[in-house]
């Protein structure tokens, strides 16, 4: 390990570290634009110049590897002059439009020119002007401001896996663009907005909405998919203005999907802000008391209540609903499955992403079974791509998931292939023999009543044979699934639907036959099932309440309240608590702490916030099951409209339209 000296501080760093990283370790700040720790090194902004002994010129520290005995200075006159010079050149063609630039206040160029710039410019000619580029409905471009750091190009190529961005022309005429100005065909595209160190790529939906210092920032987690990406919600008053990623190396690194980022404008429209009851076939706004009165009338007729929870419901609400149902009807007829879904409840690991998201990096062989990670869990897909890029891992698939961001090798689309693998009759069996950490990712599309058991048991027995049961992964799609499984909030959806009274919390996907049924809908948006309800109770969305969620790894994470529910809407567990009072069967908790205490009593594993579950996956048993000879049928995924918030979002609709028209102009004609 080489020893280097940075400004007189002697440090020992690992081989392959760059001088820039060594300076960081020594606690010295190095200004930079093009360097980004998660992207390849370009070395074209020249802002990170430092002085190195025995080098006649300043060196670009981001691209210079450390070597034994290097002596580096970061605060000499030469470095200062170099930085001022680079800064002056960068600013030659950068417009002085900070007052009308959306990046203002969080702009690297602004900050660094204050700290390292010379203060004046000797340039007297006209600045160049560059035509704005069209990059889809999410990214607003103002290419005059571009300093050609090429971070966006490298991101699109390396992380997003859609090498559609590039720099055309040369020298002063260099421009960043997509090929003939097409929409960026990626679910991670908006991350280039965060990466852009200047205001060249800014957020279109957030354009001119707020300045960063006016916003209240709340660190919370995302519920658009089961990944549980860490996010920061920026609010101004009641409105959620934007959502940004938060660094979490174990989950989303520092990327989030476009849906996570931009579905938030759906929180402002189509909201249920009052209770409603159905009178003469029409839904009429009413008070909470009237709504509760109506429910208690119905409950006095029959105590058969079934509960269904949707995909974005927090643990507290699920637990409160379960408690409520037990209190009212004596048994918990509850489920979270709105589609045909197989659960093996004998062991929790049967339902988890056991490898863990960070664990994908170490894998050396990946098999997708009926999974489409690109649309089902975009962040996991970026991990798989990272592995594919770094380790050239071979990725096999059973079933055709459509275009992914890496090369996939098809093993056919019949599930029977799994049995062949187990019996060493497939090319995959050869690969798995030499593999150290194989993983199998099973999608919800094949986890149905007919195929689920076969897929799960066979996958387990394949992995068990090679002593890597840790590679068993279930790719859940909704944020509430694993939590509901851990709270045992499932019985049988069909049985639940047989009840005379149905209590739906955010369950929007299922089709309900309302004949002779009384439907209570508690939720946030005027969805399909809200429209057929007899009573609507306005609930809180994920940014409007404190709550716990379990992601697909089984990791419990807490979401925090960033704004408050609109109008008369209330937090969901409070509604259930109040309703239980109205029905004279009060639930035994008054605060969220008491509710959580009871919940942790029920399942102590939920107490371990931010940690992976501590269950030994090797205790999983396997069974021999009959071979199922059937094809993989992918359940259709409407990526930009996969939940009620996204469906209400104008931005998501624009993305959907842009993507469709993009697909249409392809080569099919």
């Amino acid at each position, binding site marked *: 390990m080489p020893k280097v000296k940075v400004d007189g501080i002697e440090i020992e760093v690992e081989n392959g570290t760059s001088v820039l990283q060594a300076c960081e370790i020594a606690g010295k700040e190095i200004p930079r634009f093009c360097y980004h720790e998660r992207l390849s090194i370009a070395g074209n902004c020249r802002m990170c110049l430092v002085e190195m002994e025995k080098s006649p010129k300043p060196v670009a520290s981001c691209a210079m590897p450390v070597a034994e005995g290097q002596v580096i200075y970061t605060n000499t006159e030469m470095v200062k002059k170099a930085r001022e010079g680079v800064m002056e050149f960068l600013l030659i063609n950068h417009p002085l439009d900070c007052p009308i630039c959306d990046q203002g206040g969080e702009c690297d160029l602004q900050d660094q020119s204050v700290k390292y710039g010379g203060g004046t410019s000797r340039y007297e000619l006209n600045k*160049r002007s560059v035509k704005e580029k069209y990059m889809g409905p999410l990214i607003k471009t103002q290419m005059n401001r571009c300093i050609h750091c090429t971070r966006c190009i490298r991101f699109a190529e390396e992380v997003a896996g859609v*090498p*559609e*961005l*590039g*720099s*055309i*022309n*040369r020298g002063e*005429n260099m*421009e960043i*663009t*997509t*090929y*003939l100005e097409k929409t960026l065909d990626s679910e991670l595209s908006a991350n280039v907005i965060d990466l852009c160190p200047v205001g060249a790529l800014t957020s279109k939906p957030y354009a001119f909405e707020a300045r960063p210092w006016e916003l209240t920032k709340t660190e919370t987690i995302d519920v658009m998919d089961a990944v549980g990406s860490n996010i920061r919600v920026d609010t101004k008053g009641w409105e959620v203005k934007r959502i940004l990623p938060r660094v979490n190396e174990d989950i989303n690194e520092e990327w989030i999907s476009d849906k996570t980022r931009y579905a938030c404008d759906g929180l402002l429209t189509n909201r249920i802000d009052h209770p409603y009851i159905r009178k003469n076939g029409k839904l009429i706004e009413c008070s909470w008391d009237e709504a509760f009165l109506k429910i208690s009338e119905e409950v006095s007729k029959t105590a058969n209540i079934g509960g269904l929870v949707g995909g974005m419901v927090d643990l507290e609400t699920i637990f409160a609903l379960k408690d409520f149902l037990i209190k009212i009807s004596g048994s918990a007829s509850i489920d979270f499955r709105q589609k045909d879904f197989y659960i093996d409840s004998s062991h929790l690991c049967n339902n988890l992403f056991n490898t863990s998201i960070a664990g994908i990096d170490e894998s050396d062989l990946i098999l997708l079974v009926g999974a489409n990670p690109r649309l089902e869990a975009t962040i996991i897909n970026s991990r798989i791509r990272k592995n594919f890029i770094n380790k050239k891992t071979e990725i096999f698939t059973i079933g055709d998931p459509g275009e992914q961001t890496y090369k996939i090798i098809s093993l056919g689309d019949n599930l029977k292939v799994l049995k062949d693998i187990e019996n060493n009759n497939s090319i995959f069996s050869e690969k798995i023999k030499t593999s150290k950490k194989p993983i199998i990712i099973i999608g919800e599309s094949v986890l149905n009543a007919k195929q689920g058991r076969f897929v799960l048991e066979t996958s387990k027995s394949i992995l068990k044979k090679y002593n890597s049961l840790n590679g068993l992964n279930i790719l859940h799609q909704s944020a509430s699934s694993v939590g509901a499984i851990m709270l045992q909030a499932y019985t049988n959806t069909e049985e639940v639907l047989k009840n005379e009274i149905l209590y739906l919390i955010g369950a929007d996907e299922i089709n309900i036959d309302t004949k002779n049924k009384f439907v209570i809908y508690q939720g946030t948006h005027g969805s399909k099932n809200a429209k057929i309800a007899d009573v609507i109770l306005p609930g809180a969305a994920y940014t409007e309440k404190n709550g716990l969620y379990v992601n697909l790894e089984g990791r419990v994470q807490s979401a925090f309240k960033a704004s408050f529910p609109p109008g008369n809407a209330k937090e969901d567990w409070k509604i259930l608590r109040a309703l239980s009072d109205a029905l004279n069967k009060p639930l035994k908790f008054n605060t969220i702490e008491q509710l959580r205490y009871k919940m942790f009593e029920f399942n102590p594993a939920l107490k371990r916030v931010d940690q992976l579950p501590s269950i030994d996956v090797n205790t999983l048993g396997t069974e021999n099951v009959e071979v199922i000879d059937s094809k993989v049928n992918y359940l259709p995924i409407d990526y930009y409209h996969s939940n009620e918030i996204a469906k209400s979002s104008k931005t998501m609709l624009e993305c959907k339209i842009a993507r469709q028209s993009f697909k249409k102009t392809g080569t099919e004609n």
Partner: protein
Amino acid sequence: MSGKHVAKNQPKTFIFSSENIKKMKEILCKYPETRKKSAVMPLLYLAQKQNEGWIPLVAIQYIADQLDVPYIKVYEVATFYTMYKLAPVGKYFVQVCTTTPCAIRGSGKIIEMCKKYISERESHLSNDEKSSWIEVECLGACVNAPMIQINEDYYEDLDADSAEKIFKSFKDDSLPKFGSQKGRKGSEPIKQRLTLLKN
């Protein structure tokens, strides 16, 4: 000049001729299979030659497909290098050297002649669509300055008159012989050869 001029009227299809497909295969042989994208520059040149001196967008896509790289990567290369043309050039494509030695020896006058006999603007086709001209940096024939390149031939030791004569000859395809227009051989002294001769 801001960026490269990309032709508005683009052909619908492009495919290498059977002869060029053979050449393409030869070029691809020079690179390992995993590095075949390195062949992008010779292939672009091949396409330019086949398509009368300029590369249409369909050819860029065609080459990208041949090399399994995204379109933008080929487009980047084609826009970066000045010798790839993305808009039609004339049958007689005149490149006028205007770097220092040629400029001192009077390339300005040749530019004037270009404007007069070819077209007022650089990289625009002449009225009969037979020729076009551009300014270029040093073409490496400074001893015979000023000089121009027409397609693949150098015309050297020019002055306004000889340039005019050449440009006028485009009309009936009767170009004078390439090389020095003052009649000297190569770069020999223009009056009397003395170097290395015994006296």
